[in-house]
């Protein structure tokens, strides 16, 4: 105990976000009252953010195993095998609450945190992606949030030196008071150079490396687990700021130190800082750890051990070195002008013992802080609103009188319009491996010295998840996989970022449970393991929960990176094929939102077997170099996918499309949304082979038109036949203006 420590009482525990039962449990476990520092340790490690209290039971069923998985969930990041001696590590994480409070720094430190997760594994980061959700961009407050978040993501990644390979940015009123900022990072690691966050070897020294500790973000971990309310303003000072320059030095120093063989284990200090690193590392190895908190390099004066343990200052790592190799560690970090200070040792007593100038201020079994954290299975209840949503029939609304105008309206809706304003602020090329930059369905990187490539994407249509959490989450997995497949890549694994409201509300927890079930079904059917993820609960403001948003980050491999594909048409005269089922729905569609500001209705069915064959067929066709382009049909349906294929590439190319008989509702045929659909253009010399291949895979598909000209025309009712009508006829200049400016006009 230090002199100034407040007395630990139940009230103080409650103020730390613990419940009375949890406090009781701590006392029983310790056989005494905790010290103030210990209370800090428990409250941080038992927070939702660190302990996954409300989600853990539901996540147990996720498929995490597959032959290619070298590391599943539980480490800083998952790892999949790339063949040869290389592996890929990736992880996604949320930084929603900090980004709302301070958009630029909150988003920046989100990127910083996920990058550290990657390089602690021994990997060099090769890409980041960002999945963002905001309220209406026409609202000036939202606009400032967007500008701040994008500049923060750009600043951190650009300065650090990692290319941004994609992401998403979506809008819905539900995110107005609670935007989502999810950052994913991807790294390349040698299979024999993988490091883990374990404290092995009794007597091994524990080093603190990186930036100095200040009072940043103390209790950030508990803040991230509390709903926003009016007092959010007062909690502001807890936000931490980033220093990407120091992170870059930390990266180089860590990789260099790892290469010397002096490092036994390493973990970054993110949420709950030293408290988390000093308990999780020994917990993983069944060891203990003793540290002297006063040795921690400090930026501010008069810090207490409580503050030192809980600080969330950025750009810091805890590492366990091999005894006798201390000098190697010190020398390497000194070269990069970083602190590397031995602050303790690995013990075998299973305890985390924190001393402060010699006196013991905390002594807690590490398992009590980690594995024994409370796990809840709170009640779930199907929300009353689901019935009403499902009962709504979008076709009860009149069809838009002018289909061309409707298409333009969709293209300029900020959700669909070009996101170039975002990614031109991000370095996309550093490393000179970026073969497909943001702007196609997935980003593609080459791996120098090999023939392979890696494709990455993030996806989630939250409207779908809201309408049907199970199917919607499965569709998010399917869409992410489809985005990889249309780029020529075979999915290897995924990482999920499950953004939901408060799990203490049975309706929200039901959404969560259903979504995880859908995720599980899709992963099983498509044989894609979950190798890591993150749960972000309490995304609510004043009782308004966000749309349930399980963002899927996925990585895949191209065995031959020369056989890759992009979403835009490439050669006049190529025939256009539509792969996948005809079943689509206007339920939850972009059209329903743009024209009627409605989110309701039933989703088109997802047949995971069909999904799988469509993707396999697509990859086979790309592998055989038959396709000049392939584009996933997502928001806005077939018509939007066609328009994007015409104008999103380096060269604008029109298309003449003939849909045959489409029934009474052209809006359904053109703008209806459904899974498993791909628009592909086939090279002239490959048509026969393509037809044969589609037959072999038994994929539903048909020819729908040809690439060429300077306009997009879509006809229905049979070519040349009487009654055949031009549904859409638009010059590409108009299409490009709508799509190019639809989002940018809201931001500066």
């Amino acid at each position, binding site marked *: 105990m230090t002199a100034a420590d407040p007395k630990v009482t139940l009230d103080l525990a409650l103020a730390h976000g613990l419940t009375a039962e949890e406090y009781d449990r701590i006392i029983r476990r310790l056989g005494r009252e905790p010290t103030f520092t210990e209370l800090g340790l428990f409250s941080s490690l038992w927070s939702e953010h660190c302990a996954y209290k409300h989600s853990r039971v539901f996540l147990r069923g996720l498929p995490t195993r597959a032959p290619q998985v070298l590391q599943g969930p539980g480490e800083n990041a998952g790892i999949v095998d790339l063949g040869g001696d290389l592996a890929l590590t990736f992880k996604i994480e949320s930084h929603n609450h900090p980004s709302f*409070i*301070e958009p630029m*720094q909150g988003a920046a430190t989100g990127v910083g945190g996920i990058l550290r997760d990657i390089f602690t594994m021994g990997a060099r980061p090769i890409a980041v992606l960002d999945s963002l959700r905001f309220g209406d961009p026409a609202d000036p407050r939202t606009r400032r949030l967007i500008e701040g978040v994008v500049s923060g993501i750009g600043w951190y990644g650009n300065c650090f030196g990692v290319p941004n390979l994609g992401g998403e940015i979506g809008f819905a009123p539900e995110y107005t008071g609670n935007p989502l900022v999810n950052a994913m990072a991807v790294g390349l690691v040698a299979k024999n150079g993988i490091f883990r966050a374990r404290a092995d070897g009794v007597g091994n020294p524990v080093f603190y490396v990186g*930036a100095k500790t*200040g*009072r*940043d973000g103390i209790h950030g971990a508990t803040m991230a687990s509390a709903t926003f309310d009016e007092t959010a303003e007062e909690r*502001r*000072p807890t*936000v*931490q*700021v980033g*220093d990407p*320059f*120091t992170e870059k030095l930390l990266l180089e120093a860590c990789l260099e130190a790892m290469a010397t063989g002096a490092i036994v284990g390493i973990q970054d200090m993110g949420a709950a800082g030293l408290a988390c690193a000093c308990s999780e590392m020994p917990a993983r190895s069944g060891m203990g750890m003793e540290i002297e908190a006063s040795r921690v390099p400090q*930026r*501010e004066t008069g810090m207490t051990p409580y503050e030192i343990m809980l600080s969330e*200052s*950025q750009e810091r790592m805890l590492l366990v070195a091999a005894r006798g190799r201390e000098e190697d560690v010190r020398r390497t970090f000194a070269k990069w*002008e970083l602190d590397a200070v031995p602050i303790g040792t690995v013990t075998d007593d299973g305890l985390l013992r924190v001393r402060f100038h010699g006196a013991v201020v905390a002594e807690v079994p590490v398992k009590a802080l980690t594995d024994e954290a409370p796990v809840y299975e709170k009640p779930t209840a199907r929300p009353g609103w689901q019935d009403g949503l499902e009962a709504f029939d979008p076709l009860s609304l009149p069809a838009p009188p002018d289909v061309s105008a409707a298409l333009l309206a969709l293209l300029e809706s900020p959700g669909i319009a070009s996101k170039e304003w975002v990614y031109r602020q991000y370095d996309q090329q550093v490393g000179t491996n970026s073969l497909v930059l943001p702007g196609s369905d997935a980003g593609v990187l080459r791996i120098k010295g090999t023939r392979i490539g890696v494709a990455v994407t993030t996806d989630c249509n939250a409207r779908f998840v809201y309408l049907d959490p199970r199917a919607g989450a499965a569709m998010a997995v399917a869409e992410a996989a489809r985005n990889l497949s249309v780029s020529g890549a075979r999915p290897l694994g995924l990482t999920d970022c499950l953004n939901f409201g408060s799990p203490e509300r049975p309706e929200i927890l039901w959404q969560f449970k259903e979504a995880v079930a859908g995720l599980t079904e899709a992963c099983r059917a498509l044989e894609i393991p979950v190798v890591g993820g993150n749960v972000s609960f309490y995304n609510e403001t004043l009782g308004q929960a966000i749309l349930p948003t399980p963002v899927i980050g996925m990585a895949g491999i191209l065995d031959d990176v020369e056989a890759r594909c992009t979403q835009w048409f490439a050669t006049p005269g190529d025939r256009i094929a539509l792969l996948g089922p005809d079943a689509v729905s206007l339920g939850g569609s972009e059209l329903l939102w743009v024209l009627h500001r409605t989110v309701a209705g039933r989703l088109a069915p997802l047949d995971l077997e069909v999904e799988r064959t469509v993707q396999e067929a697509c990859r086979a066709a790309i592998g055989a170099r038959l396709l000049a382009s392939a584009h996933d049909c997502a928001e806005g349906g077939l018509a939007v996918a066609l328009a994007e294929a015409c104008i999103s590439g380096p060269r604008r190319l029109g298309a003449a499309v003939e849909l045959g008989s489409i029934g009474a509702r052209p809006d359904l045929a053109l703008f209806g949304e459904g899974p498993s659909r791909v628009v592909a253009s086939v090279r002239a010399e490959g048509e026969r082979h393509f037809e044969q291949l589609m037959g072999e895979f038994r994929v539903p598909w048909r020819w729908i038109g040809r690439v060429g000209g300077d306009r997009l025309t879509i006809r229905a009712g049979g070519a040349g036949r009487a009654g055949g009508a031009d549904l859409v006829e638009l010059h590409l200049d108009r299409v490009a203006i709508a799509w190019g400016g639809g989002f940018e006009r809201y931001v500066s």
Partner: protein
Amino acid sequence: MRARVLVRLKPSILDAQGVTVKRALAGLGFSEVQDVRVGKVVDVELDGLGPDEARRRVDEMCARLLCNPVIETFTVELLTDTR
């Protein structure tokens, strides 16, 4: 009337820029430097306001735009124009 607004990071907030500048100065031989903090100076030229009103308005500008209260503080100095 001119107002000089100094916007600085709160003392408790990491000033990575200041740390780097301090180290660079030390490298150039300025070892007497104990600490460096880098902030912004915003010079605002105002029209037709008396000093009290001007200060009130500039304070408002700081609160609404010039200063980010999450991480920064500001001070305002009024300079009567001597041009």
